[in-house]
């Protein structure tokens, strides 16, 4: 059984030792589930991953998740093993339960403002889904698909820090990352023109500055002033679950064909 085998109709519910470790019901390519993976890994909270075939769900999954959606987080140290649903609610819970690596600002107002930006990104997601799932991109015409991203470029510029969260990624960075990671897949399907324009999104993805230095008698080029996307790709929590653009594109193709290849990896 592969590491990312997705349980489907007729499969038995996986049994885990009574080890007090929570179970995350997920799907390897689901961006909403991705959010929860990021927070769990950022806070280094141990968890078992249980992947679900969303097209043909195992019968036992209905009892796990009342919405039958992923992500769903089954807690192992609470009476009755309650299950939490909704990516943002799960992430907020983890933030409060595991405060050691704080992801939200301490200030309630700043936290509320970050939550508003997360919420607003949700509106941008619907626009992007059109692009990610569209069979014939030519039909999309001249719609400005990235219009919703401008405020994030502005906001990061305004904050003047590497990440929205400051010196390290915060909740806002992680909550929007899954879709930003998937943008890397677009150019495989739709050509280079679709990738985020570094001139327009200079703070998010702009090309970093290259500097020449002499290092041990050799002329070396080092890339300094990495942009947000590059920095995020180096983040340990992001790295755990990261898939490159080509892989995302490959999966999206199967999804568009109505035959999502969950066990692709």
């Amino acid at each position, binding site marked *: 059984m592969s590491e990312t085998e997705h349980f489907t109709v007729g499969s038995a519910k996986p049994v885990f030792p009574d080890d007090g470790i929570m179970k995350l019901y997920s799907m390897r390519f689901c961006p909403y589930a991705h959010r929860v993976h990021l927070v769990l890994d950022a806070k280094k909270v141990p968890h078992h991953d249980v992947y679900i075939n969303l097209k043909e769900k195992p019968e036992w999954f209905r009892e796990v998740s009342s919405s039958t959606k992923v992500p769903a987080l089954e807690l192992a140290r609470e009476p009755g093993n309650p299950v*939490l649903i909704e990516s943002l609610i799960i992430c907020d819970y983890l933030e409060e*339960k595991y405060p050691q690596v704080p992801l939200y600002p301490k200030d309630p*107002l700043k936290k509320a403002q970050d939550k*508003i930006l997360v*919420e607003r990104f949700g509106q941008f997601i619907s626009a992007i889904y059109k692009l990610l799932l569209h069979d014939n991109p030519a039909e999309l015409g001249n719609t400005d698909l990235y219009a919703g991203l401008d405020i994030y470029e502005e906001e990061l510029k305004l904050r003047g820090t590497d990440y929205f969260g400051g010196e390290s990624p915060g909740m806002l960075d992680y909550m929007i990352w899954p879709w930003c990671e998937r943008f890397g897949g677009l150019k495989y399907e739709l050509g280079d023109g679709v990738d985020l324009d570094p001139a327009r999104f200079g703070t998010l993805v702009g090309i970093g500055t290259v500097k020449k230095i002499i290092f041990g008698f050799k002329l070396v080029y080092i890339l300094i002033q990495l942009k947000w996307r590059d920095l995020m790709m180096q983040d340990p929590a992001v790295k755990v679950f990261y898939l490159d653009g080509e892989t995302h594109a490959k999966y999206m193709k199967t999804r568009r064909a109505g035959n999502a290849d969950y066990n692709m990896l």
Partner: protein
Amino acid sequence: QIISQLPYFAGSTKPELPGDGVARYFTMAFCPFSQRVHLLLAAKEIPHHKIYVDLIDKPEWYKEYSPLGKVPAVQFPGLKDQPTLVESLIIAEYLDEQYPEPRRLFPTDPLQKAQDKILIERFAPVVSAVYPVLTCNPNAPADALEKFEAALEVFEVELGQRGTPYFAGQTIGLVDYMIWPWFERFPSMKLNSQYELDPKRFEKLLKWRDLVAQDAAVQKTALDVQLHAEFQKSKTLGKPQYDVAFKTIA
């Protein structure tokens, strides 16, 4: 704690808002999402100016406060940069944290809080199912009320499982306030569509409703069922009549 009420409608020039550092609450009198915030402002006794916004002919200046032109919005002119918050649940959570007196309305336990948030989220299908009937839409789907009742049953069951008078426990809490606005509106369906909730099927919920109706904050923010009915009906005649809110019931 309403310091002043300023009705502003379409095409108006930006109002002279009071410069006293008091919070500004942008609302539409009949908006249930907006009422959520009103309930928090009342429950926490937070002084505020109320500014009504016409949602059909949105005044241009309003985008400075709420970029997508939505209500509710609350501006805090007394804070640095005079920030405005939007999104009813985000505003409610912020107010609960920032104003812990007289008491916290969300549970402090992270799990209980998450479960309450999930419950609030599960109210969304109730709202979307009943919406066409509530708003007197002649093209309401035939199974709208059936779907509504099925989604509402989740709450009847949940209240039974929790075994407390309020969803939040022995005293009223955020989860009760966040779903309340629609319960205030359901009785208008009796006037407009001759529909009311089955007292046997929703026995616990109706008991809860009567209890919550007596809450001080609920009473401060309530609009009479007749006004709700009239407003919903006005939508079918073209433009919604926002000033129905200012009518006095004889």
